[in-house]
């Protein structure tokens, strides 16, 4: 199997889906001629032309709203928000419209659309090019939220998202784009939305994560093995709908749970995971459920020492796991 980068997996999925289905098209700022500011849509303009790879005006609400209209009509738009931080002007369209279209029309109309957005920090992006936004959408029924961590999952899940009958927010950690590489089959495959995956088996402590921090957990697990701590790592992959069974299974496996995400602690999605566990597997727990997350400050600052302070890393994850293991 060829080894490709996380961002190439995005591009391949888009390209193959556009080849497979004429209704699939891409729209967003700089996605056409420029191929996207991260180059995620590189080559698509050349292959599919200006009509299917649309450079839109600088208007996120219109990008979302036009995609909604086109998807209701029967197209399969894949909209790009240039940075997840800039999805806010489209919030009304996504929350009030896309997420509620099926419910409010009693299953008559619906929005099979994907909104892709690069999120996350560690790239000198400062306050507004580093944010995690999943918690702002995780409580919006009607929307699905996918947050893959590996090229394999990116490609398989993006294909599933495009083929899905409901609106999917597809969040790509921008630090992973060129950092994370992995094997990806050449033949067509999908990864189902809503299924978590055990990325590493272990017995002492369970880490539940997604995105970039999943890799920190894997790294930490590898290093802790040498200290004799065996870590079980669950990659949520999709946060809505949430794979509750997988979470409970992973909890039972070790009885000690650490939830890790880059998004701020308070109001972050870790709270939901924690609540779910303590509601359903309370008596399986051998220690308090712990969360390790970004601090409760508005966003990640620019200056390197501050950015470093905000970001998680394998060391911080290791420390938290060790504490739980020793509990």
């Amino acid at each position, binding site marked *: 199997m060829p080894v490709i980068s996380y961002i190439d997996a995005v591009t391949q999925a888009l390209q193959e889906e556009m080849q497979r289905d004429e209704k699939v098209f891409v729209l967003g700022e700089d996605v056409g001629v420029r191929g996207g500011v991260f180059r995620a849509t590189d080559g698509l303009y050349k292959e599919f032309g200006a*009509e299917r790879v*649309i450079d839109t005006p600088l208007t996120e609400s219109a990008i979302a709203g036009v995609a909604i*209209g*086109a998807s209701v009509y029967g197209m399969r738009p894949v909209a790009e928000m240039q940075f997840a931080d800039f999805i806010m002007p489209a919030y009304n369209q996504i929350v*009030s*419209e896309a997420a509620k279209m099926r*419910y409010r*029309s009693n299953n008559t*109309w619906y929005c099979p659309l994907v909104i892709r957005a690069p999120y996350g920090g560690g790239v000198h992006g400062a306050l507004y090019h580093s944010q995690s936004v999943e918690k702002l959408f995780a409580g919006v029924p009607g929307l699905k939220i996918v947050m893959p961590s590996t090229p394999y999952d990116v490609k398989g899940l993006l294909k599933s998202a495009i083929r899905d009958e409901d609106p999917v927010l597809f969040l790509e950690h921008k630090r992973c784009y060129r950092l994370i590489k992995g094997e990806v089959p050449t033949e067509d495959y999908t990864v189902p939305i809503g299924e978590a995956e055990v990325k590493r088996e272990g017995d002492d402590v369970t880490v539940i994560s997604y995105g970039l921090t999943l890799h920190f957990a894997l790294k930490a697990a590898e290093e802790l093995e040498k200290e004799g701590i065996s870590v079980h790592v669950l990659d949520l992959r999709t946060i809505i709908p949430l794979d509750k069974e997988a979470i409970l299974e992973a909890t039972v496996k070790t009885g000690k749970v650490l939830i890790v995400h880059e998004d701020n602690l308070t109001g972050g999605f870790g709270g939901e995971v924690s609540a779910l566990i303590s509601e359903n597997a309370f008596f399986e727990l051998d220690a308090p459920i712990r969360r390790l997350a970004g601090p409760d400050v508005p966003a990640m600052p620019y200056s390197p020492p501050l950015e470093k302070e905000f970001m998680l890393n394998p060391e911080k994850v290791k420390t938290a796991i060790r504490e739980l293991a020793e509990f």
Partner: protein
Amino acid sequence: MGSEESVMETSRHEALGLSDDQVLEMYRTMLLARKIDERMWLLNRAGKIPFVISCQGQEATQVGAAFALDREKDWLCPYYRDLGMMLVFGQTAKDQMLSAFARAEEPNSAGRQMPGHYGDKRFRVISGSSPVTTQLLHAVGVALAGKMEKKDFVSLTSFGEGSSNQGDFHEGLNFAGVHNLPVIFMCENNKYAISVPIEKQLAGGSVAARGQGYGMPGISVDGNDPLEVYEAVRDAAARARKGEGPTLIEATAYRLVPHSSDDDDRTYREMGEVEEARKKDSLVQFKKYLEDVGILSTESGAELEREIGHIVDEATEYAEQAPYPDPSETYTHVYAE
């Protein structure tokens, strides 16, 4: 505007290519919309339905516009007052009453949404929400899809003059202008956004004047005149189908009743102003026109009123008896099942 020779003998509607039957049908639909609406207020005041939001005063705009479209292929993204438009496109008095009573059989949402929140796949009417102006972008999206698929339909979206100040208006007109899309933006200017009059709402005072900033025609019409609205929308649709892009139309009329059944308009406007507006009521004026050109008589007019009264009665009775949705319906259709 009509051929030289026969201007004086030709009636206005003939000059527009409309038959007597067609204008009669327009009037009939306007009247039906009005009567349904009036009945809803009675039902509300009698405590039978929780909420009404009215088309009263805007029937000419809505019916004139919808008549100018192709009811077999064009798409609508209307707003909560567009009862007249919905009737033209195919919904019935029964549909309206079922919706007012929030019954399971109600076609827009099976009772999930408030009345006035239209949506009907049979007639290519996309489901609307309450936050204003969002639907405008959906119409642009449909028009984009139509262009991509090389179809020749147009989409029409309507909204109030207050709502035209939302950011989505700007983004939508700009997007449609850049991509030269077959979409008609129709502002139904009824001079108030709840209590806020145009002077406090709309810098410059004209929605139509904003069209040229997007390189598209911005057309003002008398919203009390269904023929004038018809003509503007017909021409806009023809341009759109020819690939000449979007049009902004502002049809000005007046909201004859309070904003909704929860409103009390005496707190913010003089009732004399409403009385003045009633004199220009399109139902009065258009009726007079039809009488003047000899299409409607006192008798046929009265007969029409009776017929419509029956329809509204029947619809009301039917809806009142119809069952509510089952509570278990609360949980369905969040996602595809």
